[in-house]
């Protein structure tokens, strides 16, 4: 994790403006940020500070009003929305606060979902799904539907879904926001392990200082700008 390596994520001069009626809301202002391969970065800040917006921009869910976003050498602010979708499928895994699993499918099928976009055949998909569920410790729950799982278990399925394609970047939006302390700790431990043992680069939005402690670096946002930065 030497500083000499080129950054994996390179955000330069990014503005994000939303239009609400006739009013312009500046969510991000001339923001710069680098994230290096293998980092576990926590994005903190009060609500409305723009941390989720920044995460969405990095994940290619939204486009900056101004500035550039380069990920692994690719300018994702420039490519078409179709290319962007394909890029997300290949490079990004998302973990959501409310897990956002498909209620109509069991754990296995939920994890398999992003693999449907690959060329893997049925057997290969099954193998990847098994591995991912094993990593998150839910191998024995693969046939359960979301409503049959606890919050912590659902989030593990969410993480398995995010890592099953072996993405470059893992983006987590308040992954413990809906969990009790114990389950939250387990999820954070899992993320930490993924970071340390498998070298996953993780960016996590959180407003919980306790969660942020698990990251290797913490960045604070306020009113759309980086205000301070420190290693945890």
């Amino acid at each position: 994790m030497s500083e000499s390596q080129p950054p994996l994520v390179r955000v330069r001069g990014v503005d994000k403006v939303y239009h609400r009626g006739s009013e312009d809301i500046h969510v991000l202002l001339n923001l710069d940020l680098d994230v290096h391969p293998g980092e576990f970065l926590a994005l903190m800040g009060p609500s409305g500070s723009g941390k989720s917006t920044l995460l969405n921009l990095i994940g290619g869910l939204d486009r900056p009003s101004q500035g550039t976003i380069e990920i692994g050498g690719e300018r994702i602010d420039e490519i078409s929305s179709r290319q962007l979708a394909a890029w997300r499928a290949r490079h990004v895994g998302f973990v959501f606060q409310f897990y956002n699993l498909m209620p109509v499918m069991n754990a296995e099928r939920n994890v398999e979902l992003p693999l449907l976009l690959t060329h893997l055949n049925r057997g290969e998909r099954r193998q990847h799904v098994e591995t991912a569920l094993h990593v998150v410790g839910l191998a024995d729950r693969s046939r359960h539907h979301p409503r049959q799982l606890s919050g912590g278990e659902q989030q593990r399925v969410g993480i398995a879904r995010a890592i099953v394609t072996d993405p470059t970047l893992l983006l987590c939006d308040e992954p413990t926001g809906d969990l009790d302390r114990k389950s939250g700790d387990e999820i954070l431990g899992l993320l930490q392990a993924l970071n340390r043992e498998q070298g996953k680069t993780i960016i996590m939005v959180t407003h919980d200082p306790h969660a942020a402690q698990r990251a290797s670096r913490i960045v604070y946002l306020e009113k759309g700008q980086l205000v301070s930065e420190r290693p945890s």
Partner: protein
Amino acid sequence: MKFFRLVWGNLWRKPLRTTLTGLSVFVAFLLFGLLCVIRQSLTAGISMAGADRLVTRQKVSIIQMLPVSYGDRIAQIPGVAAVVHQSWFGGIYKDPKNFFPSMPVQPEKYLEMYPEFVLPEAQRKAWIADRRGAIVGRSLAERFGWKIGDTVPLMSPIWRRADGSGAWEFHVDGIYSGAKKSTDTSQFFFHYKYYDEGRSFAKGMVGWYTVRVKDPAKADEVAKTIDAEFANSPYETKTEPEGAFAQAFAQQVGNIGAIMMSIQAAVFLTILFVAANTVAQAVRERTEEIGVLKALGFSNRMVFGLVLAESLLLAAVAGLAGLGLIWLITLGGSPSPAFLPVFYFPIPDFMVGVFLVALLGVFAAALPAWQAMRMGVAEALRRAT
């Protein structure tokens, strides 16, 4: 195909709603099929018409009769391959409501003119040899339970017997079946000679002629020649293709095609609206799931496709079940042979049904799928939290 589970799973998110929508689509296509069958039955004569056959009738009205001698004169006209005559007997069996088409014909020539009436050779010979013989269509025979060898008395309000006796008696010598599904097998044919000798008036007169032309391309020309032959005679004729004759006959009832079409259109639009609303509702409820799919890397097109596929799948399962049920019902035969002598689901109509199923699936989902496609990912996800 690997997306099938996703589509199928989404479909059953609200089983009750999906079932109800499916049932309304099912009923709509049941109705569609039923109307097709009824229309086919009411206009059966048109599809039965041969391209090489003409009908020559009295110009003033089909009710007026023509001399039997016209047959020989028509046969001499160049381009005419064969000619037979038929007359309207109007027979009823026991009760006026037991009504069916019954006609005196020349047996041998008639069967040659209409190869679509299929009769076993032995029965054909028996009929030709028996002056009081008759052949009945399969559906007619089933309607009254007639068997070969039965003696059937018919009354006619038009034709009374010269000897004053009430009923005309016929022997059932044969039961014919149709070469095609569209063939009407509800008719009753018997010897012209028996009829002509027995009737009390209008002897030597027949209802109308059917003419086979050698070359269908010259049918119009032959028709004009026939009518010119009898112009300025006491019995002027009007000759037209069998199809046009049958069509005019069907149109007498009313514009059946247009009536059926407008009912079908009303049904289709109504159900379309109901189905479209269901799909829209299902998509609205899933906003955040669609956002997740997009975050996972599903392109807008794929999301559009998934919504469309879901709607198409529902329409296909329910619609095809409706069409299939009608098809099964028609295999069982006509529930009302008197009104609907021909009872089957024509293949072209079935194909139109399949096309409408697809159309319903696409149209019901078009707007919601478009909205799902256009939905911004970040926005969709935000709406969830």
